[in-house]
């Protein structure tokens, strides 16, 4: 059964380990930081410049969840929007390595690090990507390893070796 929404997109078989995609750039303003923090992360160091200067981060910084959400948006724009993705499975080893401060410009790289058939559903595969987000000085702000389910063109009957990992 073909999905009319994703018919023209890249499917599991079209993806290659090692492919990379540039992410961004995207500049984050004071208003962006405070707007997200009010809704999802109202710690004083994301809301108030004075409190932020006295905090561990030393100034107004974006919620780590906002950096993640922006990375996701950059990934959808650069790559995932053209893929027959079926949704996210989760992520591992997310590290906020450096705070994202107001007026920082974020960019980054997504790399395909893993492709395997789903064990439970032979109509799809599991795509793993490593994401790295950097600021305008090239310093790494965040890394994570993201997993997504992707539609396959052809169903594959399970063979020996398919259950690897």
């Amino acid at each position: 059964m073909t999905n009319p929404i994703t018919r023209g997109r890249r499917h599991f078989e079209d993806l290659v380990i090692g492919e990379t995609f540039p992410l961004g750039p995207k500049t984050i303003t004071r208003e962006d930081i405070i707007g997200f923090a009010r809704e999802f992360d109202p710690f004083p160091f994301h809301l108030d410049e004075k409190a932020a200067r006295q905090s561990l981060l030393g100034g107004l910084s974006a919620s780590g969840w906002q950096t993640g959400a922006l990375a996701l948006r950059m990934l959808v724009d650069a790559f995932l929007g053209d893929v027959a993705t079926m949704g996210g499975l989760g992520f591992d080893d997310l590290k906020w390595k450096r705070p994202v401060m107001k007026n920082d410009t974020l960019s980054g790289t997504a790399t395909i690090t893993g492709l395997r058939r789903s064990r439970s559903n032979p109509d799809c595969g599991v795509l793993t990507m490593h994401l790295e987000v950097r600021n305008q000085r090239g310093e790494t702000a965040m890394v994570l390893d993201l997993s997504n389910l992707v539609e396959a063109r052809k169903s594959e009957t399970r063979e020996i070796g398919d259950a690897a990992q």
Partner: protein
Amino acid sequence: MTRWFEDIPLDEAIDLGAHTFTASEIVAFATRYDPQYFHLDPEAARHSIFGGLVASGWHTISIGHRKMVDRLDAEADAIRQLGDEPGVSGPSPGVSSMRFTAPVYPGDTIRYTLTVTGKRHSHSLPGWGLLFNRIDAHNQSGVQVYTADLVGFSKRRDYVMPLGMRLALALSNLPGMKWLRKKS
């Protein structure tokens, strides 16, 4: 923001409260951060594996984080009302694992639970401790929608700065010692 590092209990499930997801907030979040068709367009989403519109996983966890911050604030207020000084929560260094285990549909009510599964003193930040937090989220039928292992910083009440460090700090505040301040 909350209790001090020393007072935070281990392996106690703390109810963070619940949130009901509406279709309009699901679409609003997806429009900004995760514009995939099954988070954006109810009609197109019928063709997806979910059979309809679902919330972005990042939306579900962002609300979970908000629930945690609100709970910490409420606890800090309660501590202040008793005439005590609440502890301090710091920023998080990361998330070791996040698993989305079931979709969240419009109208679903998700309940969040926090359990501190471990804690230790920070090696990199003197005066702070690390908390190993588990957040679990379940829908109104009791089905788990995600489980996450996160790390957080929490200030140590009983921390005493070593003599050498106090001396260095005092020296760095003397005039003519600016170079030391820059170094530290």
